Each structure stands twice: as C-alpha cells, then as structure tokens.
C-alpha cells in the first residue's frame, strides 16, 4: 500500500484555488504565462505558489532567474520564496541535468513532490504544466482535485489542433476550464476564438507577440513591465481570479 497518495489532499487543503496553465502543445508560452500570472497575483497582494510540473523541460526557474534558493526541511519540504512566490520545481533535485523519466516514474515523482511539499496557506497555486495530455495532466486531475485549467494556444492551426484535444478531454472529464488564451498574436485571425466557441469554452483574450519579451527573461520586475504582462493583466481582469474569496 502506497501511503503517499493519502496525504496529498491534506497538503493541498489550505490552498484556495489551483490553476493549471496548460495547452497540450509545446512552445506556446505556458511557462511564461504561468510565471507572469503567479507574479502578477502576488504583486496584487495574494499569497501565491508556483509549481513547475514540466519534469522533462522545466523552465519557470529560468524565467524567475532563480539563484541559490533551495527548499527548507520542516516536517516535509517548504518551497523557498522567490520574488514573493513560493516556488517548487524538480530543478532543485536534478539541477540542469536531463531527467529522462518514463510514465510511471513521472507519476511517482509527482506523488512524492505533492506528498512532501508543505505549501501552507495560499490563495493560489499556479501549476506550469508540460505539453501533452499524458501523465502530468492525468495525475493533476487525479490528485489535485478542484484544479481549474487556463488553456493557452497560439493562432497557429498546428497548435490549435492539439489544444482542441486537451479541451475535449477536459470537457469529457467535466474538469473546470477557466478559458482559452491566445498567445503570440501577430496578425488578425479568428481561429482560436472560433475554436473556443465551437467547444463552448470562454475565450479570455489575446496576447500580442512581444519582441522584447526575451530581454525580460530572468528578471521578474522587468517581465511585469512588458507588453506581454500588460496584455495578460487585461485578461486577468476579465476573470474572477481577483475576486476576494469569502
């Protein structure tokens, strides 16, 4: 009998909302959206955690410019506070080495992380999801009950084809979908909006392609001043994320 699964609910009990930033497709800006969302919510006075579940290609730590931070041992592991957010990632344990994990190992690592991480009280835990609709997506749905999905796409037909599959899966499993964000918008196009409508998913808005965004990677203060962050904040103001919880 694996005892770890039993404790996960208790570990997440003091978190008000779980937001999974996902896409199905890689390279659409999930990590940037997840990290900027976490930073923005924290800047607005909320207690925020950020969990990078992309074990094969973790990148939230690069965006945050993580340096010399490590979890503290205290009846489990307590994530360090990085630029105001409690940040947990497999990078603390695998450094910048490749982590070639197969399915069962991915699940085992997720269960271990969720069983031993002491988040304490949080308004939001933002989860940076890997591409795909396999292990991490299914494990998040299984173990992080009540998670709401914030789905990201680009205007590309290629991205939308995969994003559509994630949305269909979430709908089939009756998992809450906050809505669809269209990232890296360069030209007028209504494909993403139409796709959202077709699947009865709220279309939350678009983020223009920001050619200066790369310069802000690793510098959260600069990141929050980019056009990208401003566009994301407009979207944020249209959601219920900033409502005061009762």
């Amino acid at each position, binding site marked *: 009998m*694996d005892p770890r699964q039993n404790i996960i609910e*208790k570990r997440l009990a003091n978190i008000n909302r779980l937001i999974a930033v996902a896409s199905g497709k890689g390279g659409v800006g999930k990590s940037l959206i997840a990290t900027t969302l976490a930073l923005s919510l924290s800047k607005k006075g909320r207690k925020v955690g950020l969990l990078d579940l992309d074990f094969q290609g973790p990148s939230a730590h690069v965006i945050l410019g993580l340096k010399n931070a490590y979890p503290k041992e205290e*009846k*489990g592991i307590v994530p360090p506070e990085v630029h105001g957010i409690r940040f947990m990632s497999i990078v603390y344990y695998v450094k910048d080495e490749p982590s*070639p994990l197969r399915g069962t190992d991915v699940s085992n*690592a997720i269960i*271990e992380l969720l069983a*031993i991480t002491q988040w304490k009280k949080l308004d939001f835990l933002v989860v940076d999801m890997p591409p795909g609709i396999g292990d991490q997506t299914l494990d998040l749905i299984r173990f992080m009950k009540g998670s709401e999905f914030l789905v990201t796409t680009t205007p590309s037909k290629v991205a939308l084809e995969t994003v559509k599959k994630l949305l269909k899966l979430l709908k089939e499993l009756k998992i809450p979908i906050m809505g669809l964000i269209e990232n890296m918008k360069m030209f007028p196009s209504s494909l993403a909006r139409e796709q959202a409508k077709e699947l009865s998913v709220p279309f939350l808005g678009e983020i223009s392609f920001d050619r200066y965004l790369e310069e802000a990677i690793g510098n959260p203060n600069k990141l929050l001043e980019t056009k990208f962050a401003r566009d994301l904040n407009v979207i944020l103001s249209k959601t219920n994320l900033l409502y005061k919880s009762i």
Partner: protein
Amino acid sequence: MHEWALAEAVISTVVETSKKEKVKEIAEVKIKIGELQQIDEEIFRFALGEIIKEMVRDQDSSLENMKIKIEKEPSFLKCRVCGHEWSFISQSKKLSEDESESIHFIPEAAYVYIRCPKCKSPDFEITKGRGVWIDSIRGTR
C-alpha cells in the same frame, strides 16, 4: 525533517484503512522502506511515535498499542537496454552527497545521477526498494 512528511502519510493511511475495515484496535503495522530513498530509520521512527502520541491525545485510541515493524528493502535496478541488473548499494558510493540527497527527496532523481554500470544507459527501471510502503496492518474488529 522530510521523514516526518512520509511518517504522517503512513499514519494517515493506517488510520483510514482501519476505519474502512472497521478495525477498532490496531495491533501492528509493518512498513517497508526501500534502500534507494535512504530514509533515516531513527528519525522516521521518532516521527511516527510523535504523530501517534498526538493522535492518541486527540482521542484516537485505536493507535495506542500499535507495534511498528520496519523492514529495510534492498534496492535493485534493471537496465531496459542491455538487461543488466545491479543493486543500488553497489553503485551508491559513486554518488556525491548532493546527488544522494536529491535521490533521498525524489527517488526518481536516480535517473539523472545513475547509469547502467554495463552499457551506461539511463533507461533502467527500479525493480525493488524505491520508497516507503505499508506491507500489512493487523488489528481487531
């Protein structure tokens, strides 16, 4: 003390399983700890004891006389590419303190720091002795 989190998971599972099985008094729980995770048995036992004391104080008497048996399970790994099998202990001395500690927290970090001693592949499986496991719970209904 990361052992505390695992001890808490063990006790929580024991309590829930006993409730499900309508066990009034738990006589014994047998726990296996896999060598790969390098759990400090003394700390783990201390944490289990403290958590039980706390629960008994909170009126859960089912755990009061519970005996705890801990068995260490040797860890074995098997290469998926060349089929070679080896024990974790035979290679563990090659790990640095940091690498060992990472495997202690997340045993899957083994795939980052360990390679098949024969063909150097990272594509192996942990066949035995990964983490903490409840082997059996004995009690009276």
